[in-house]
């Protein structure tokens, strides 16, 4: 067997989800190669070369890969997969992998397996369906398995190795069909939602964006990431990439604190692998209390300042 992992990165940092993907791959076979497609991404390559348990890193440096446009990444991956006879192609199941891997899968004429939570064997995987309300064990009969991996379900691979790096030449036929216009990325010094040890999220109960400062003060004391329910994002309180849930980010911190969130199944889908869940809600009937380890009935505007003071 031979596994190719397509790295998720932003030309500066390798995303931690890539390290989790490598751990999932190791449960299939030890013959694992990492592919980095980027532009001036030396820091990423440097960092990746320390990953333990990788056989090789292949990279292509090309200006067309600067913004990771799916159209531009597809052909080089297809060339590499076909040349080197991989049995598995994998990537983390963030928006990067979701956007790209089904293209590879379709062109290879295989059925992708999305967002796996467990490796049973080299052809059998577990993945959630119906927003995690059912777990599907599925076996692939395809010659090449294309798989995306849910990062929170696998530990991150360690960085104590020394991996060979091979540069591959690729002259692009940059797709003129799609042009990158701009990024509006949210900047934050706080940890990333999907890898934070503690997450504190606010819902519609926060009433407005300003009130999220109540959560941010606590987050800073705890070194936590801040998240939100869909209702809070839709109401414009906070940016879209803070959304936690079925269609937002899946988190699995040691501690998740839900404030003013009712606990809809779509929200629960994104948090139920957390070790401990705390809910703060003024409605004692709120469904969130059925999923939380510690529940506190109270008005968040009274409770949060007290909590911050105690920390």
């Amino acid at each position, binding site marked *: 067997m031979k596994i190719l992992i397509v790295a998720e990165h932003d030309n500066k940092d390798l995303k931690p989800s890539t390290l989790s993907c490598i751990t999932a791959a190791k449960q299939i076979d030890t013959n694992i190669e990492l592919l980095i497609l980027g532009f001036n991404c030396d820091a990423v390559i440097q960092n990746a070369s320390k990953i333990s348990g990788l056989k090789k890193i292949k990279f292509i440096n090309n200006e067309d890969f600067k913004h990771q446009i799916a159209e531009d990444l597809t052909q080089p991956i297809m060339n590499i997969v076909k040349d080197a006879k991989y049995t598995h192609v994998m990537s983390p199941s963030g928006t990067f992998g979701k956007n790209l891997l*089904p293209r590879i899968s379709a062109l290879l004429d295989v059925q992708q397996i999305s967002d796996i939570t467990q490796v049973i064997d080299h052809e059998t995987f577990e993945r959630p369906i119906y*927003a995690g309300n059912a*777990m599907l064990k599925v076996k692939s009969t395809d010659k090449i398995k294309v798989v995306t991996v849910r990062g929170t379900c696998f530990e991150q691979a360690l960085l104590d190795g020394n991996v060979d790096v091979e540069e591959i030449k690729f002259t692009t036929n940059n797709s003129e069909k799609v042009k990158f216009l701009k990024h509006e990325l949210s900047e934050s010094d706080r940890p990333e939602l999907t890898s934070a040890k503690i997450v504190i999220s606010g819902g519609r109960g926060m009433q407005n964006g300003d009130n999220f400062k109540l959560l941010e003060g606590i987050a800073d004391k705890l070194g936590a990431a801040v998240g939100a329910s869909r209702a809070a994002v*839709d109401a414009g309180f906070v940016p879209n990439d803070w959304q936690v849930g079925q269609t937002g980010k899946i988190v699995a911190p040691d501690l998740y604190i839900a404030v003013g969130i009712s606990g809809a199944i779509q929200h629960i889908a994104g948090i139920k692998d957390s070790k401990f869940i705390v809910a703060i809600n003024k409605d004692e009937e709120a469904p969130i209390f059925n999923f939380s380890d510690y529940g506190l009935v109270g008005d968040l505007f009274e409770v949060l300042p007290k909590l911050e003071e105690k920390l």
Partner: protein
Amino acid sequence: MKILVCVKRVIDYNVKIRVKSDKTGVEKDNVKMSMNPFDEIAVEEAVKMKENEIAKEIVVVSIGTEACKETIRSGLAMGADRGIHINSDEDLEPLNISKILMKIVENEKPDIVLMGKQAIDDDSNQTGQMLAALSGFSQATFASKVEKVDSFLNVTREIDGGLETLKLSLPCIITTDLRLNEPRYASLPNIMKARQKKIDSIDVSTLGLDLSPRLSVIEVNDPPERKAGIMVKDIDELMEKLTNEAKVI
């Protein structure tokens, strides 16, 4: 301009899912079915484009059992012009759905294909990207804003770090995210009007495709259960539990 909208019939998002006791799947008998919520957003976007005179014709397509016609009708009631139903009694995987849609695209030659980013039953999030790869159309997934500028579409995408805007040439495939719009409710007169609109039926076997499944279901299980814990009376007790019992702070 012509827009093709792909809609899937799924278990309504409010239904509590039950895994069958023989572990072969989830209970679908006597369960409320609806249009996939992301596909409703896709229909709404298409109808808005028609209202803004960007699009001339909206065709809604659904693949599945006879009952999918009902789902197509809801799209017609929202403002689409006609429907195509591909009849199949099998549950088809995204790769096969994209191959069928490819046939429709070849016939209909749409300028824009609007789809949901994911079906809330299989949660695959694949079909749009697969169809884009097969057709060579330009692709923008997870769209939260679509604007026509000259002969291009500027599409803002919701990505992990925030937002990204791409300029797409046509024809293109766009998959919708939740914040693209709020789907309208069909009015009674429009529901009546939709009954007159045409739905073509095509049997999947006439398309000449090999649609054999690539995956086999081993079993479907309930997810690990999370038990309700305890209620604490105040912040002091919460702090005590988090520090001494859970040991997370």
